């Protein structure tokens, strides 16, 4: 009886520690994805207006640092012209979670304004 109780306790504690470790990994990944989205947005903000078209951004990928901690990580950049001088840039990062599923992605949206750059 005592042995069974001890074993149950040990298994329960081990499961709890495993869950905590998984949650920590998951939290680290979400933080890394937010940081990566911020860095990518800085890079896009720096580009001239003419280099923020979907064709130019198709080759954009995750940084080496993010590839290391986001298994199966993918960067999606969507560009939509709201009018002639305003462009909406959406960054989406998704990756495989420690549980194996692809959960809710991290998103960051920014607007870029032409502000005097020459029109084509």
């Amino acid at each position, binding site marked *: 009886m005592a042995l069974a109780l001890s074993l149950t306790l040990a298994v329960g504690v081990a499961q709890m520690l495993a869950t905590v470790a998984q949650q920590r990994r998951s939290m680290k990944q979400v933080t890394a994805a937010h940081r990566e989205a911020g860095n990518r947005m800085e*890079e896009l*903000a720096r580009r001239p207006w003419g280099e923020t078209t979907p064709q130019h951004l198709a080759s954009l990928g995750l940084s080496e640092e993010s590839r290391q901690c986001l298994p199966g990580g993918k960067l999606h950049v969507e560009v939509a012209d709201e009018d002639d001088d305003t462009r909406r840039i959406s960054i989406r990062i998704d990756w495989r979670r420690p549980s194996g599923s692809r959960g809710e992605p991290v998103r960051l949206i920014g607007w870029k304004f032409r502000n005097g750059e020459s029109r084509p």
Partner: protein
Amino acid sequence: MRARRGYSLIETLAAMTLVTTTFTAVAVSLHQMYRSTRSVQDELSMELELGRFAIQFRADAHQALSVEMEDSVKTKTDSQTLSLVLPDERTVHYVLQPRRIDRTVRRGAEARHRETYRLPRWFAPRWQLEPERPPAIVSLLLAPRPAVSGSPPVVAVRVDAAVGLLRSQSRLTQE
């Protein structure tokens, strides 16, 4: 038949082994949980500090007219200074120290404001400047130090900021 008045040696030893095993398991679990809590607190603290740094660093960089980097070889100290010149004659100096980043705002020679961002001991910080084309990107790189005992498994961290973004023709708002 005589009534039994005690326990045999085998029974006593078995009970003692069980009690010892249970106490050991509980002690190990508590120790793991304590370490885990400390580690989570350290990581959370680092993320908050880095988030605070990133907001201020990007705000300074976006306003900056120019950027200069002074390395430890020139200054012969164990620090690396990044200076951002702002439009209203202010200069913001970010100085990397082994365990922290010091931010000092100066107007002329007079220091107007100073704050510090703590860094975990398992990171080696350095600046990186990519001036290929304006506006330049300036980055804080935190590379894991090779042999720091007790450090959690970490990967490199990078915080980028575009210099002079608010002065350039293209600008950006974020939500």
